[in-house]
Structures are given as C-alpha cells and as structure tokens.
C-alpha cells in the first residue's frame, strides 16, 4: 500500500518537532516571546482550541446540528479502528461495518433484553467486538491483499441475514427500538447535548488510546509488519500475532462506535448495517487520510456531511455526486484530507523558517 506509507511519512514530518527550533536564541521582548511560544506550541494550541470549540458548540447549535456532530464522532471512533488496521497494520478490511453492527446490536440486546444500565454496555460491547475480531483475525494471518479483502467482505455480507434470523433476540428485520440515554438531572443538559458529550468523551478516550498504542512497542511492530513482513520477522516481530491483534483492536473501536450509535439513534435494524456501511467507512478513512492522526476525524466529517451536501447540489442523483467528490478528493489529495492538511502545515513551517532565516 504505497498511499499509506506516504501518509505516515507526511504525518511523521508533522509530528516530530524540528530540532532546529529549540536551538534558536530566545527572543528578547515579551511580545516576541509570546509569538515564539505560539509558534513553537501551535499544535497544542490548535488542539486546545479544537477541544474548547467542541465543548462550546452544543450550547450554541440547534439540536439537529448537535446530532450531526455526535454522528461525526461515532464515525470517527469507528474510523480510528479501521485506521489502526488498514493505515497502520496494512491489512485491508471490507467488513468493518460488521463489527460496528456487532457493537450496535450487542448494546441493543443488552439494553432491550437484559435491561442493563447504558454506561455498562459500552465496555461490554467493545469487549464483545474485540473477541469476535480476534476470531476473524485468524484468516488475516494467512491471507493477504485481495484474498483478505474478499474474506472480510464476506463477513459484511453475511451479518445482515444473520441478524434477521434470530428474531427472538435481534427483533428480526423489524429491529429493536430502545430508550435513548437521558442526561442526569444535575447536568441540566438536553438529551442531544448529553449524547454529544458521551460521544465526545469516548472519542477523546479512543484518540488517546490509539495514540498511546502507536507510540509503544506495539505501534512500531505494526508499522514494521505493514512495511515489510520479512524485515519484521527478522527483527523478532511475529507478524501473525500482530495482525490478529490489529484486527481485534480495530473491531473493538468499531464495537464502541456501534454502541454510541445505538445510544444516539435509539433503533437498530439489519438494513442499517449493509455492505454499503463497510464500504462507506473504508472510503471515509481513505479520503480522511490512511495512517494519519486526524484522518479518522476528517473521514467522519466527510462521511457525515458530504452525502447531504451532494444532495443539495443535485437532488436527482446524490450518489453520483458523492462518488465524483470522492474521486475529486483523491485526485487533489492522494494522501487524504489529513495529508493535504499535513502538506499545508509543512508549507507553513517552511515559509516560517525561511522568514526567520532571512531575518536572522
């Protein structure tokens, strides 16, 4: 996968601070010092601003917009998992929607039949998806490329009739309708705001978890498996077990996202989790930026907003416009939207250092 390698290259360029920065002499005036501080920490500041905006937004927007952003985060969490598998471990999956469905249905069954309190369903749904992901990770250790794509596609196809079969548990093709979680009284939040903050908390948690995972030994092992299995093996990394684990983790995030989905929509039916969902998710992460930090979030925004945007352009064939937009994005930004942002940041860094050089 040449795109994914490129993508990490760009990310790496963005993530590692340039050593030249710290060697600069400290500027004298307080104003200069402030500027230098801002410039040096712009990534932290941007993150802070993003978080503040995320917290402030639900109080300013109409519930419909709040709902949309909640769904963006649901997709972002699912895409985080897919990014881990496809972007970082180099394994293609056309069946991510199936694990999403496992999480969603797991949550629905736990809330509907067992009447568990909803916060409990999140870890349980994630764990369930993890176990199933581990089981389906077995073929991943033996197959690669198109063959693996085919096997994962089969998972996505067979989940829908499976969900329709066990009617007493899954509600058949009618699905299950559930109560949505409501905010505890002390918060004074409307239900949509509460769901938004639940999703925000899970999203932050998921982003931090992925970040820590990738910075550890495991992350480096995954990258080595992706870049060259032979080299990885020579260095003492077992590709088979890491591939299987990558599958399980990616399924776990999909399961957590599925749980959030059930909380937000309050209704599950087999037709919500068709092959289309898996393909949309894959398109989302490729457009967002495979192997990049912010790819999942950008992909979530794309998956959520572009279909309705393309509907505004042409009512007759929204699908066509959606497809054309994907092609356009891939043409303009072959490393995804995150890659585009990375390139912009790179360009910004370059011009800045040029300016400093000129000044100096």
């Amino acid at each position: 996968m040449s795109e994914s390698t490129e993508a990490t290259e760009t990310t790496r360029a963005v993530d590692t601070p340039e050593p030249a920065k710290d060697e600069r002499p400290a500027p004298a005036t307080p104003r200069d010092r402030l500027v230098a501080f801002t410039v040096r920490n712009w990534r932290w500041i941007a993150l802070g601003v993003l978080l503040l905006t995320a917290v402030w937004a639900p109080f300013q927007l109409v519930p419909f917009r709040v709902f949309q952003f909640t769904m963006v985060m649901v997709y972002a969490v699912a895409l985080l998992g897919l990014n881990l598998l496809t972007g970082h471990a180099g394994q293609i999956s056309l069946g991510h929607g199936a694990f999403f469905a496992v999480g969603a249905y797991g949550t629905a069954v736990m809330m509907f039949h067992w009447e568990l309190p909803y916060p409990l369903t999140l870890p349980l749904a994630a764990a369930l998806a993890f176990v199933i992901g581990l089981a389906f990770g077995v073929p991943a250790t033996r197959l690669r490329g198109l063959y693996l794509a085919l096997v994962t596609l089969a998972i996505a196809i067979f989940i829908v009739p499976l969900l329709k079969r066990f009617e007493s548990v899954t509600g058949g093709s009618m699905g299950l309708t559930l109560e949505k979680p409501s905010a505890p009284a002390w918060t004074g939040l409307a239900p949509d705001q509460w769901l938004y903050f639940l999703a925000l908390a899970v999203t932050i948690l998921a982003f931090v978890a992925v970040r820590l995972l990738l910075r550890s030994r495991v992350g480096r092992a995954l990258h080595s498996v992706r870049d060259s299995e032979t080299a990885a093996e020579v260095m003492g990394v077992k590709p088979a077990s890491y591939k299987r684990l990558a599958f399980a983790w990616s399924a776990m995030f999909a399961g957590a996202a599925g749980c959030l989905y059930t909380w937000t929509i309050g209704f599950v039916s087999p037709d919500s989790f068709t092959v289309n969902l898996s393909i949309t998710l894959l398109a989302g992460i490729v457009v967002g930026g495979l192997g990049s930090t912010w790819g999942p979030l950008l992909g979530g925004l794309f998956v959520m907003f572009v279909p309705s945007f393309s509907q505004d352009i042409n009512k007759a064939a929204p699908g066509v416009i959606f497809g054309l937009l994907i092609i356009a994005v891939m043409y303009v930004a072959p490393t995804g939207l995150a890659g585009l942002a990375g390139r912009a940041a790179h360009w910004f860094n370059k011009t800045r250092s040029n300016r400093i050089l000129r000044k100096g």
Partner: protein
Amino acid sequence: MRGTAVSAAVLLAATTAAACGGRDDGDGGGTASGACEGQQTTGITDSTLKLGGIYPLSGPASAYGAIPKGIQAYFDYVNAEKGGIDGRKVEFTVRDDGYQPPKAVEEARRLVEQEQVFALFQTLGTPSTTATWDYTNQRKVPQIFVATGASKWGADDKHPWTIGWQPNYLSEGRVYAQYLKQEKPEAKVAVLFQNDDFGEDLLGGFKKAIEGSKIKIVQEKSYEVTDPSVEAQMRDLAGSGADVFLNITTPKFGSQALAADAKMTDWNPLHVLNNVAASVTVLKPVGFKNVQGVVSSTYYKDPNDPQWDDDAEMKLYKAKMKQYEPGADPAVPYHAYGWAVASSFHKAMEAAKCKTREGLRDSVHNLNNVEVPMLLPGVTMKTGPDDGFPIESMQMMEFKGERWSLVGEVIDTRKEFGPLGD
C-alpha cells in the same frame, strides 16, 4: 513540559465550561390564538404551508424516489391553479435517506429543526419510519400518511402523531382470503413468502382470515432477501398439489416465482401475486403470455389501464404531470401514487378545524369515508379514534393481454372482518 501544562490547563477550562447548564428547549414556531389557542403553528402561515418528505432517492430502494415527483406535481398544480390549500401555498421539501435509518433520523431532524416544517408528509419504508417516529412524537410533529404497509402505524397508541395511508399488509392478506372464499372455497394453498415483517404480516393476515373456512394452507416456504433465487422453494411447492399459489414477494423474487411457475407445466395453480410485486415492469421480463390469469389487488387507478382514459382525474393527472414534471413519465404508477397521496393530504388538511399541528393530527384520525378521485371508485379513507388505518379496501385484478383488468367488487376488509387489531 510546557506543552503538556498548556493542554492540561485547556482541558480544565473545557470541563469547567461544560459544567454550566443546558439550553432552553425553545421551538422556533408560534402558537395559535382564538379557538385553537395554544396549538402549534410552526411552518404554517396564512399564505404558506411547509411540508417535508424523506425518500430513498439513492441506494437499493431508489425506485420509490419517483413518488415525490407525483406529489410535487400535485402541489405545483394546486399552488398555481387553485391558490394552494385553503389559500396556503405548499412548499414541499424532499430529502434523501438512501433507505438508511440513521440518515432518516438526521433528515427528520433537519426538516423539523432547521427547515421548520409544519409536518413530515411521508417517510418511506418501515425501517426509516420506525427510526424516526419516536422523535416526531416527542416533538409533537405530525408524520402523515407514511409510505409503508406495516400494520404498526395504526395499531400503536403511543404514537398518535404518526399515521399510515396505503392498505396495510394484514388487510391485503384478508383481501386474498375473502377472494378465495368466494371463488375457490375449498382451495388448497401453497405459499411463498419473504422472511421479514412484510411477509409475516401479509401471511398472518391471510391465515387469520381463513380460520373457520375450508381453505387450507398445504405448504409454506420462505426465502431471505439475500437469497439468489427462489427456484428450490418453487420446486418444493409444486410437489404439494396445491391449486392456489400465494406469492408474497418483493419485485425481484416475484418475477422469479412467476417465471418458475410458468416453466412448470405440470403445476397450474391459480397464481395470486401480492400488490408490491404486481407492477407491469415486474411481469414484462417474464413474458406476458406466461402471466395470463395471474390475480392481484390494488386500490388506486393505474395510469396504464385504458378504462381510466376518459376518467376526469386521470386526464387531469396526465396533463398536469406533463406540465409541471415534464421529465417524469406519467405512466409510472409511483407517480400516480404520489398524486393520490398528495390529494389525500389536501383533503385532510382542508378538513382540519384548526390549521395547526394538533388540528392536522385530529383531522387524519377523523376521516369519514373521504373520497379521493385517484383512488378506485368505492375505495375511501376512513379512520376513527380506534382505527388508525385510512385505506382498508382493495379490489382484485386479473392480468389479461398486456395489462391488469379489475374484477369483481371492491373488498372492504373492515366490513368483512371487523377492525384490525382484534
């Protein structure tokens, strides 16, 4: 590290901000005064009326995307030539959900909160309607004449703001039972049905209606929507020796079953095809000579049927479709369906005492044999406090030559079997 300290501070600030309370859940719309005091008037003024519909314009069910074109043509015609409904020009906004429930929820919220529509006039499909009806009922937004034949829209008392329109599948099953009681009182029936709520509703209605009669179901076989073919099921059914074949299928499988029946020359049952698969476009690939004598049922006028060529409403429909939706073919029955449901809405809205959301809700639950010209003569809309099913009558039709011809009288299942839900 300074960066970490900064981010920690930011996070702290963020959580503090989060701790301060919610928002007033104010609705942008106003309320009425006078006799209808306190009722909601969002989306309606003295000169305009905003409606929103959600249809699959893309995705696997996009054939149904033709329905809003018929509706749009009707409203364009009423706005331009009749001064709107009670002097209110109708603005009809259509959104696409691709037949996906989460998209339907998003679009319902968009229509209600951002577009501030007066009512959702049609959501299409059982999954999409199920996903949205809790929301519309919490917000007290009418969800009128939903385009699905499931029986739950009328049978549920927790969702007074949602109501169906077309005959539900239970009633359709009753219609076939009634027809067989008259034509073949000792029928031995073989059934093929789709294994989901649609198939079970229709078969359930049929089974209940034949209780106590001499009609027997000798064999039933189901299939999944994901099955490639129903040929194996058809071979089993042919061995049952039944003299009636009840075909409860969606279009693709309907034509497979018709083709299989035509191929098996040693089994020649009376073929009863359900309404959703009875479109001429389904029968054509099978070959018209192979489907002669197949029977089905309907409730609105088929634009392809020459007997309506001189019908005033049909003429109006064809002329106005040509005028306001020149790109759409008036011969497509889905357009006629849209026209029929839009004019049903027109009647219900006109009849509402209060021109408010509450008024519309009460009006659609109090239809007293309302005649809609696009429906078959004798098919009327009737609802009441315990009856949430507007149309429950259908007429049988038989395939002759290249089109359906109506046979017999309109079968009123209300009269024959009593209200649903008992």
